[in-house]
């Protein structure tokens, strides 16, 4: 008999499990519409591989895993993909997330499954891949990809494989009922898992409040190396870390993994999913869900397809919405409230709890903490919850971190025991999020700083290079002048000659710069004109030659073609240049230093803001409107001009959309102004 250890703390909330195990697992059937969130697990969301309107078979891949820590999504029934869009999902935020919506065709037609009955003949890596592509994620509630958990590094020897059948949360019986009804499949799954991680021992841990499950599993485990360990009921013995301590006496190091101490832990439901994926080749498309609480007439367990709406299952169980004030996914200790009954169940949905208002009353207002220490007594992580609470309340997040905030497993035992009804878990969740946010912000700002400094350095370097070139040029010119002067000394009137030379050079420079900066346009236009002339002469020659029937007609034709091609290129160059310099007519784009662009923007913004601050909102709005209107007229003028000039279509479209947007903004500004004036 295994030695059972105890863990610190724990509570004994009323179990309320008997209501939902009176009947066997019921098949919930196929609803008309299934909504499949792309992210039902911890890790990266899956990527859809089907399109809207595609016909799919039951078990077909709908969305593929993206990265190592990710799992794919499969079609729970046959039908048509009716949409890929954001839908409300079961999440405490009440936000929507990308989902694949599948309209059932009622046929429920399987695709061909590749079964691997003799898994021992298959390579471990291939089996892991099979589990991975079957979309198996932890069914206990957290939803960590199972294949990732099983991919233990070869240098780590696993002593104990634990199957978690504890189900310590009140109300939930999904694991209990599968252990009763599907014990042999669990044992089979356990053996597959054992083949994968090669442990010294295989243990299934169960609390002593499930005698039927214990008996069923013991019967199924006969003549197998699987051991059934029974221990006293106490919440949260089903927490992975707590269960490991109960069964092995060892603690998972903070920040480490169970594999670090030679343990791999899997939920019993995951074991069945792994078994089905290997032996039957079926992906994870359904699960057992407990629907319970006083607001349903017949609490029971359903075998439901992933993506089934909660309201569908609730109806089947006789939902009485008028009794129900909050709908909980999961148990009363760690579950979260969902915003609406019309959200789909996912791979981690073990329970839908619809309590009556009297059953789980709304929490009364919190009273002050009296440091009674009851929270510390029940904390399974041996934390000092009330200290963490004071730190979180005072926003001293660093101190909370020092007091091991991140070792909190959010089990809720402290809040349960607190005589002052303080929502402690909410404080810890918020504090954790705050700490993570601060870390990310610090990282991001550090990153921006580095990029800014790199840019600064680059600009300085460029400036320095330019300066060096300028200096070199100047020096060279001086040197030349000196040399010339020296040479000139020999000849007659050297000074006069040097001056002449310099003058000539200057003139040339002016002309050159004029051609360069002043009129790229002219140059291009000139080129067009010349080529056109050449084309005309060439064409004339060609015509003449053709008329004469000369033998070099072909050569001439080639020449004409070439010239016309050149003309086209030149015209295009001209065009492009005009397009790139839309303001060419009025002002030339100053080749000002890039630094000044930023600086000028800053100054402009500053001036505008300074003005803004001095004025009332109404004036601001007025001014804003005027500005927008002037911008609009400008843009419209530009558009007219472009149209008149018959510019390229692309430019006109761009300008048109600009005008359109400006018009919208003007309208919005007008509305705002009216608003301001009326109130």
């Amino acid at each position, binding site marked *: 008999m295994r030695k059972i250890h105890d863990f610190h703390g724990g509570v004994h*909330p009323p179990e309320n499990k008997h209501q939902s195990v009176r009947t066997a697992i019921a098949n919930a059937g196929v609803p008309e519409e299934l909504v499949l969130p792309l992210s039902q697990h911890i890790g990266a969301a899956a990527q859809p591989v089907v399109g809207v309107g595609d016909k799919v078979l039951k078990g077909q891949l709908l969305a593929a895993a993206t990265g190592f820590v990710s799992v794919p999504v499969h079609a729970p029934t046959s039908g048509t993909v009716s949409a890929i869009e954001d839908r409300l999902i079961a999440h*405490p935020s*009440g936000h929507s997330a990308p989902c694949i919506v599948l309209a059932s065709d009622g046929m429920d037609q399987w695709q061909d499954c590749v079964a691997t009955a003799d898994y021992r003949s298959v390579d471990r890596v291939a089996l892991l891949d099979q589990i991975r592509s079957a979309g198996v994620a932890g069914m206990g509630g957290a939803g960590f990809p199972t294949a990732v958990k099983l991919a233990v590094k070869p240098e780590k020897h696993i002593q104990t494989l634990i199957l978690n059948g504890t189900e310590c949360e009140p109300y939930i019986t999904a694991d209990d009922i599968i252990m009763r009804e599907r014990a042999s499949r669990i044992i089979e799954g356990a053996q597959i898992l054992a083949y994968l991680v090669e442990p010294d021992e295989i243990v299934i841990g169960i609390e002593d409040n499930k005698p039927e499950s214990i008996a069923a599993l013991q019967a199924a485990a006969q003549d197998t190396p699987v051991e059934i360990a029974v221990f006293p009921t106490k919440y949260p013995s089903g927490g992975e*870390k707590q269960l490991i301590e109960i069964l092995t006496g060892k*603690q*998972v*190091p*903070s*920040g*480490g993994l169970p594999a*670090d101490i030679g343990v791999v832990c899997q939920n019993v439901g995951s074991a069945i999913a792994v078994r089905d994926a290997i032996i039957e080749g079926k992906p994870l498309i359904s699960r057992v869900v407990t629907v319970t609480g006083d607001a349903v007439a017949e609490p029971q367990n359903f075998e439901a397809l992933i993506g089934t709406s909660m309201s569908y299952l609730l109806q089947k169980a006789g939902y009485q919405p*008028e009794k*129900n*004030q*909050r*709908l*909980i996914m*999961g148990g*009363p*200790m*760690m*579950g*979260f*409230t*969902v*915003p*609406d009954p019309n959200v789909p169940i996912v791979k981690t949905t073990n329970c839908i*709890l619809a*309590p009556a208002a009297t059953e789980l009353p*709304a*929490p009364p207002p919190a*009273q*002050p*903490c*009296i*440091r*009674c*220490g009851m929270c*510390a007594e029940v904390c*399974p*992580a*041996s*934390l*000092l919850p*009330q*200290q963490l609470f004071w730190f979180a309340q005072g926003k001293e997040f660093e101190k909370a971190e020092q*007091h*091991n905030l991140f*070792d909190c497993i*959010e089990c*809720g035992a402290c809040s*349960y*025991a*607190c*005589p*002052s*009804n303080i*929502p402690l*878990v909410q404080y810890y*969740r918020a504090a954790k999020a705050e700490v993570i946010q601060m870390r990310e912000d610090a990282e991001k700002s550090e990153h921006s700083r580095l990029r800014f400094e790199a840019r600064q350095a680059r600009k300085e370097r460029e400036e320095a290079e330019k300066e060096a070139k300028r200096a070199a040029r100047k020096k060279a010119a001086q040197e030349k002048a000196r040399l010339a002067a020296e040479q000139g000394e020999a000849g007659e009137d050297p000074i006069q000659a040097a001056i002449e030379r310099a003058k000539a050079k200057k003139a040339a420079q002016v002309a050159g710069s004029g051609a360069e900066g002043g009129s790229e346009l002219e140059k291009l236009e000139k080129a067009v004109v010349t080529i056109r002339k050449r084309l005309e002469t060439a064409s004339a020659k060609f015509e003449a030659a053709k008329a004469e029937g000369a033998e070099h007609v072909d050569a001439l034709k080639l020449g004409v073609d070439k010239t016309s091609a050149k003309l086209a290129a030149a015209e295009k160059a001209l065009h492009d240049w005009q397009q790139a310099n839309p303001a060419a007519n009025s002002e030339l784009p100053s080749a000002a230093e890039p630094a000044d662009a930023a600086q000028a923007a800053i100054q402009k913004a500053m001036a505008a803001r300074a003005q803004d601050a001095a004025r009332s909102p109404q004036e601001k709005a007025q001014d804003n409107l005027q500005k927008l209107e002037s911008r609009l007229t400008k843009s419209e003028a530009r558009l007219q001009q472009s149209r008149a000039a018959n510019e390229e279509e692309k430019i006109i479209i761009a300008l048109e959309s600009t005008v359109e947007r400006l018009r919208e903004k003007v309208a919005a500004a007008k509305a705002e102004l009216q608003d301001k004036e009326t109130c």
Partner: protein
Amino acid sequence: MSLMRITSPHTHGPARTSKVMQQVLLATLPGLLVLTHFFGFGTLVNVLWAAVLAIAFEALALTLRKRPLGFYLSDCSALVTAVLLGIALPPYSPWWLIAVGMASAILLAKHLYGGLGYNPFNPAMVGYVVLLISFPVQMTSWAPPRGAGELPGLLEALQACFVPASYDAVTMATPLDLLKQNNSLLVEDLWQANPQFGRWGGVGWEWANIAFLGGGLWLLYQRVFTWHAPVAMLATLTVMAALFYDGGSSASGGSPLFHLLSGATMFGAFFIVTDPVSSAVSVRGRLVYGALIGVLIYLIRVFGNYPDAVAFAVLIMNLAAPFIDQYTQPRTYGHTRHGGGS
């Protein structure tokens, strides 16, 4: 239908602050009855008058602080303070003495620091010490126990409280006083010469202590507090007394049994030391906290200027509680003893 969106857990255990406070009040009853039996109605009148004042001061403070009255009064914490101070004060104390004490306790020690949960010192003990320092005469005159003098009736008790000028108080030194003031006598002689000494401690005192012990054990059974602080305190007090007890010479501080059953030992151990707000929080912290209080009580009783010392010892250790907490944090799951995880 709009569904609630709140954080887990969605269920709550049976513990309530007000229930805890009511249990504490209930647990003082046996001690209160014994005190009334041996010293007359004085203590009862103290407690009742203190309770009236407590509610009044609490309401005043809450009004000034713009907090809802009903919500905060219903936690019964002010009543607990009143009962504890009422018991600690000498019977037949005048009304103004109790009023000054309650004002110090509720207004000064509690609400000035932010109300329930925020006070670094035990309010009842602050009230007691303020009185002890300000009015030493009134605070050290204790009524004679049943058998050593005539017990005043209820009317006289009320008269003593509300019309103190007209009440001719009969007082007698407490056993702890006698022990302190007489150094030239053997303990045995002292015992014989004074009728207020009883079988183990003092007449009345020993039974009152046993009654408070009973109330405390009941609270322990009800899991209102853990055993750590009171047991540690009683243990060190016993050890100290045993170490310094020489069998009864003139300088001896009294036997361990005498110390356990005399003065406010049990009352302190189960009703004052266990005050959660101002004590240390971790399990090891409470052990240290209680143990040091036990040592201090003995030291002040025997070597200090005051006859009893629970109030001073507790207040001194209140000061040290945050420091104790800092150094007695429990080892978090998955951490090694010397900090750090993996």
